[in-house]
């Protein structure tokens, strides 16, 4: 087969399918989860936090507990559903926080070269070098454990990802001729940001945000695994994973159920991100979780 033919074929195929499959799979999965959140009381098999010490370590397939029970005899299917709201909500709120702080600072740095840009740059590298675990422990000591403290911790630690992306995109746009022209005609900085920069940066933010959401889910589980994440006893996927660690050998399903849930949710986020990126032709370079 000749090279141009291959390239042509690839391009044609690419246009037709560009991101379609990924996007529909990702959004489908995400939609399914979103639908399950309000319906969880209807589809669950038991009270999610109801402890029954006479029914510990029931394996998957047990009558009444199709995913089994944990070390306190709680129904894993009901808990994983309960965790859906908590864990996804936490990841979503953390992503939104990071996105808000990051884009604001990124835009500011792009719009105002000089001292402000330097400050943003230094702060962002400071945050990236900062030991996140210490922050998590300190926040826990000061605010206690809970949904919002965890969101705050994750948001405060990860905004530089967005700041960098927004800065790079926005400074490119601000250097364009039509923006310079708009500026010369007396358009205010705010209106330029709103009219030219935000529409251009928005799609990228969406894509980066989708991936970030997946990373936040993993981060929640890692912090809870170390005992510095979600509050004790609350059904979150991270807490469920943390519980499973003690029973790795006699109840492996305690690991499999929440791990499966996390993997599916991250998959949904990544598929959506990838699909969106392909559809909008945004080259996105993902950063490893810091």
């Amino acid at each position, binding site marked *: 087969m000749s090279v141009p033919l291959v390239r042509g074929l690839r391009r044609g195929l690419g246009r037709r399918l560009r991101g379609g499959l990924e996007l529909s799979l990702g959004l489908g999965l995400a939609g399914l989860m979103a639908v399950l959140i309000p319906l969880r009381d209807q589809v669950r098999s038991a009270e999610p936090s109801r402890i029954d010490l006479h029914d510990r370590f029931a394996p998957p397939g047990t009558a009444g507990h199709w995913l089994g029970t944990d070390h306190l005899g709680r129904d894993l299917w009901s808990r994983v559903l309960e965790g859906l709201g908590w864990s996804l909500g936490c990841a979503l709120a953390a992503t939104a926080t990071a996105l808000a702080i990051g884009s604001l600072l990124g835009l500011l740095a792009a719009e105002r070269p000089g001292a402000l840009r330097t400050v943003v740059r230094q702060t962002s590298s400071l945050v990236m070098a900062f*030991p996140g675990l210490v922050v998590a422990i300190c926040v826990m000591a000061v605010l206690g454990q809970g949904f919002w403290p965890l969101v705050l911790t994750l948001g405060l630690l990860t905004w530089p990802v967005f700041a960098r992306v927004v800065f790079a995109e926005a400074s490119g746009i601000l250097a364009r001729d039509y923006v310079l022209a708009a500026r010369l005609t007396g358009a205010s900085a705010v209106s330029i940001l709103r009219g030219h920069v935000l529409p251009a940066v928005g799609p990228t933010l969406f894509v980066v945000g989708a991936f970030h959401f997946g990373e936040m889910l993993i981060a929640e589980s890692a912090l809870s695994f170390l005992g510095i994440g979600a509050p004790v006893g609350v059904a979150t996927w991270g807490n469920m994973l943390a519980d499973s660690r003690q029973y790795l050998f006699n109840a492996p399903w305690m690991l499999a159920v929440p791990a499966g849930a996390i993997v*599916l949710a991250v998959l949904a986020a990544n598929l959506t991100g990838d699909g969106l990126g392909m559809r909008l032709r945004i080259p996105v370079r993902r950063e490893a979780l810091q």
Partner: protein
Amino acid sequence: MSRTVALRWTRFAAVHLRDLLILLLGLTTLLFFLLRLAGDPAVVIAGADASAEQLAEVRAAYGLDRPAWQQYASYVARLARFDLGESLISARPALHAVLEVLPATLTLAGLGMAATLAIAVPLGAWLGAHWPTPARRATASLLFFLQGVPGFVIALVLVQWLAIRLGMLPALGFGGPSTWLLPMLSLAGFLAPRLARVIATNVAQAMSEDYIRTARASGAGPREVLFGHALPNALLGATALAGTQLAFLVSGVVVIEFIFAWPGVGWLLIESTRTLDFPVVQAVALVVGTLVFTLNTVVDALLLKLDPRLSAAGSQV
């Protein structure tokens, strides 16, 4: 080296040194006051049965009774003389505590990165270089799937399957090569899918670029096109991610260290934070911060050298 190039590198070094100092000062300051919110180390030193007088004595002995700004000033003054203070708990120099565990973390980081590269580069090249076949599609999907698995879940599954189901007896702790396998695999299992995907994308992109066509037209074989032209460019594009991953490893992957009883900086950090051993927490943060910064700078310099289109500093926020 021409004078302008030398000048450029001098400026590069100066800018980065300044940034490092600002970073370290920022780290110190922020940590100092944040940690003081977290608790009172005197209660940990004195223990649960301490009387009020004993607490007062402990505070006086460690200078914890002075106003925070005074403590901060004297800490920074000592820091300027490269004195990181002593551990509040063991009374040993805080820097020693960090340097003791650093080899373990660096070994783990080196091994993890080596395994990641060993997996990701060939896999990425294979995936990106050719027309997708079912096998490649399946591999790509698997990588995509693996990206969603938290690293410590990989570690726990590895422990469970290798150790218990398959009857293999991996050694734990930081010792000889037998102790390296599982932590290495866990880290690579977490990092390699990401890197492989980026490399694959870059290779695929490079394969459609003009210079590849030129190379092909001038009679280069597929092997030469891939290894001589496309892959090097793809790797250049992946350097930033690999650098980030290495920085992540160097800062101590605490969950992996916990699971494999690997005595590294992540472990030290969480232990010293829990016992409110402030000088040690600070020392860990400063040493790791310096390391990560240096690493990033080296990556920057590398990119700059390889791709002179990038400007020296200030191109990024």
